[in-house]
């Protein structure tokens, strides 16, 4: 057992060495590391709690997704039934999770068969295979009910999140932030992390805005005040102006002339006459054609530019706008004009996003934490080494070497995985030092006991290792289970703790089983002790 073949020893040492080597890039500045070959560039990423930065978790508004889905279905139902020339007793309307329509009794069967065509099989993601997007029911009395199924909403939510990630990426990049990370999290969430950003107010404003831009005509059939008191015409609705305009109500046609999707460009600028900040924009060809047509027909009428159900401005059309470009003015500051331009260029979010968690660490605090973490680690390590050497003498030195290599390997593996090191992660490493020492203590104590039963040094060492290793494995697996659970339930910093603790346990078991044995075996072969200093 104590005898370890040269090949085995070489393999063990090489593994440990290679693991440790991967930690090297962490000790060089980034600019140096970038000139190295790709495979050698992997390094530990500092968590936001150490380098400072913003962590923002957003959730897609499920109700918004549901409402959009139902509105789209309502439009489809209307269109399908009109094309099929089905007589309606009542136009399609939304009730709860479904769209209902009342048709003439004689047309029910025809309407049902046409409407069933709207229902589509869902893609096979997340167990929705075999399900359909809509279930169509005949509720009797000419009432047909179309229910949007939960899997369909789920699938739509996933799409919304995917699109949102893309759009947020464009927006954040346009803001000129360094190394932002935007990821989907779970089914309906987006996680935005920006290192180094100490004040995310602006960022949240930019990513939290839906930015649905529409150009619509103002309904002149009655004033907004009349509409407020009575009832707005069915094809129009009331929207309000911005706070700066005292939330003035406007009566607008629901029909959209052109929407933000048809913009090709938007830039902040200044009005040539008044000098106030504006956003100038350009339509694509079809947008420009539509806009030209409507403005030609409606000279002298006001139209409204609406952003997320808020009227930003409502200018009067003085002359047809044929070139497909124009400008929006409306109480902008330089900053808000700039932000709006970014939003318009990046496109609208497909649904509303809400910030549900926000964690920000300033760069100063992060730096403090690193310094303190380092200091505590050095002190902890020094105390442990001193104590081990005082207790075990030469064997304490062996243990310290093994623990040092152990820590080197943890850093190497963390680098290899491009893992994130958080403050709790540093705690995890310090605790690993404790566990790693324990494995050595277990071995040495066992050897001492074996010596006391009268064995010779070599058989005592041999027996000590064999017996202690079983215990080490058992005790480390239990701790590993705790670390694994922590990894799966934890987020952010706590997960960082679980990662270092888990890796630490693996390297501890590795070093205890191999490295410590190689060191002790070599010493035994070299010193040929007749007695052990350890006892």
């Amino acid at each position, binding site marked *: 057992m104590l005898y370890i073949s040269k090949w085995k020893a070489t393999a063990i040492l090489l593994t440990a060495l290679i693991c440790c080597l991967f930690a090297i890039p962490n000790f060089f500045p980034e600019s140096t590391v970038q000139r190295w070959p790709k495979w050698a560039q992997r390094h530990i990423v500092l968590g936001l*709690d150490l380098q400072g930065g913003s962590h923002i978790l957003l*959730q897609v508004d499920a109700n918004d997704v549901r409402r959009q889905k139902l509105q789209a279905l309502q439009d489809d139902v209307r269109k399908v039934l009109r094309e099929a020339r089905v007589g309606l007793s009542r136009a399609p309307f939304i009730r709860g999770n479904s769209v209902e329509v009342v048709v003439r009794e004689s047309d029910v069967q025809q309407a049902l068969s046409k409407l069933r065509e709207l229902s589509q099989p869902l893609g096979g993601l997340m167990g929705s295979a075999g399900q359909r997007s809509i279930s169509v029911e005949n509720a009797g009395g000419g009432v047909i009910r179309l229910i949007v199924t939960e899997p369909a909403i789920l699938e739509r939510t996933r799409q919304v999140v995917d699109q949102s990630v893309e759009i947020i990426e464009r927006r954040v990049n346009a803001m000129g932030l360094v190394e932002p990370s935007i990821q989907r999290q779970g089914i309906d969430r987006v996680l935005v992390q920006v290192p180094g950003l*100490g004040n995310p*107010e602006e960022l949240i404003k930019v990513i939290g805005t839906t930015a649905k831009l529409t150009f619509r005509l103002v309904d002149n059939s009655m004033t907004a005040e009349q509409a407020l008191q009575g009832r707005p015409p069915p094809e129009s609705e009331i929207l309000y102006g911005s706070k700066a305009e005292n939330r003035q109500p406007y009566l607008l046609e629901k029909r959209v002339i052109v929407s933000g999707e048809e913009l090709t460009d938007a830039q902040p600028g200044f009005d040539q006459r008044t000098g106030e900040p504006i956003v100038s924009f350009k339509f694509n060809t079809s947008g420009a054609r539509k806009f030209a047509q409507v403005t030609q027909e409606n000279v002298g009428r006001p139209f409204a530019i609406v952003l997320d159900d808020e009227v930003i401005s409502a200018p009067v059309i003085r002359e047809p706008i044929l070139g497909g470009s124009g400008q929006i003015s409306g109480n902008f500051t330089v900053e808000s004009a700039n932000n709006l331009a970014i939003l318009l260029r990046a496109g609208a979010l497909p649904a509303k996003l*809400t*910030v*549900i*968690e*926000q*964690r*920000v*660490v*300033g760069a*100063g*605090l992060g730096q403090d*934490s690193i310094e*303190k*973490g380092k200091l*505590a680690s050095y*002190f*902890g390590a020094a*105390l*442990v080494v001193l*104590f*081990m050497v*005082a*207790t*075990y*003498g030469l064997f304490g030195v062996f243990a310290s070497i093994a623990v040092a290599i152990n820590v080197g390997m943890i850093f190497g593996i963390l680098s290899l995985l491009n893992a994130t090191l958080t403050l*709790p992660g540093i*705690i995890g490493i*310090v*605790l690993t*030092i*404790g566990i790693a*020492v*324990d494995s050595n*203590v*277990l071995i040495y*104590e066992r050897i001492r006991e074996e010596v*006391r039963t009268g064995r010779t040094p070599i058989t005592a060492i041999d027996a000590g290792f064999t017996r202690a290793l079983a*215990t080490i494995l*058992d*005790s*480390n697996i*239990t*701790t*590993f*289970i*705790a*670390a694994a*659970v*922590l990894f799966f*339930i*934890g987020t952010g910093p*706590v997960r960082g*703790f*679980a990662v270092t*603790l888990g890796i630490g346990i693996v390297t501890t078991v590795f070093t205890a089983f191999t490295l410590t044995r190689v060191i002790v075996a070599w010493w035994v072969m070299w010193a040929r002790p007749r007695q052990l*200093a350890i006892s």
Partner: protein
Amino acid sequence: MRLHRSIPLLRIVPDDTKFDFMRFRRISFPASALLSIFAIFLFFFHGLNFGIDFIGGTLIEVQSKSGPADLARMRNTLGGLGLGDVQLQQFGGPENVLIRVAQQPGGEEAQQAALAKVRQALGNEVEIRREEVVGPRVSKELLAYSTIGLMLAIFAILIYLWFRFEWQFALGAMIANVHDLVLTIGYMSLTQIDFDLSSIAALLTILGYSLNDTVVIYDRIREMLRRYKRMSMPDLLNISVNSTLSRSIITHVTVTLALLALLLFGGHAIHSFVATMIFGVVLVGTYTSVFIAAPILIYLGVGTTRVEASEPAASAHPART
């Protein structure tokens, strides 16, 4: 027999220590039961000082730019914002203040609005070092996940021990470790340490460590059970605990040294985490594995069938006591 050495090595536990640990079970069991009841009582009637991770709300750490922070004035300014319960607390040095704003009614957006108000009220006199906003949805989830996680960990470990040992050992370890967690939670309630996500990490680590200890002793007990088939259970447990005592103490001293370094130099951010760890690992974990986990095996009926099953040959091994 002794080697000549220039520096004598520390001998923390003398060889051949024969301390009668098992006799103390008549004290340790009632004492632990009482303490556990007290801890549970504390938990229900004194409660934990839940951080924003679990109850939602806003936490802001600020540093005054000009000398010590004027806590009274800040309390006045922030108290007048109409945000309900606003707590201020000195944190670390005299310049640093931790501000906690209770969760606002009105869902996720209301939290953002509250943060904006506080920021505006604080103005330029302070530097914001950290801000955390946890909405109602996330805090509920975190609490649920953490509770499930703790249960899951205990359960997974129980299953593992059941496979590795006999069920009595698994049950004994389970009782011992739930005891550890209960006492630690009692400590957290008594000291009103912030209970947040890192506390869950602390609890899980304590669980892992204290199991680690228990498993080391159980391993030895199992070995002794095979070796000494005629020895009485209390004697056998005493031998097992005594023979692992040196290891237990050396290991705990090293872990304590590492934790002390963290406590002294690790800064305020990890202070409550480390304090909890020291209580759980050092004070409770060590005591539990020796005075609870081992003697409980007597009551769980480990080794009762041993003597009948033993063969005469087994007595050839002399007992070492």
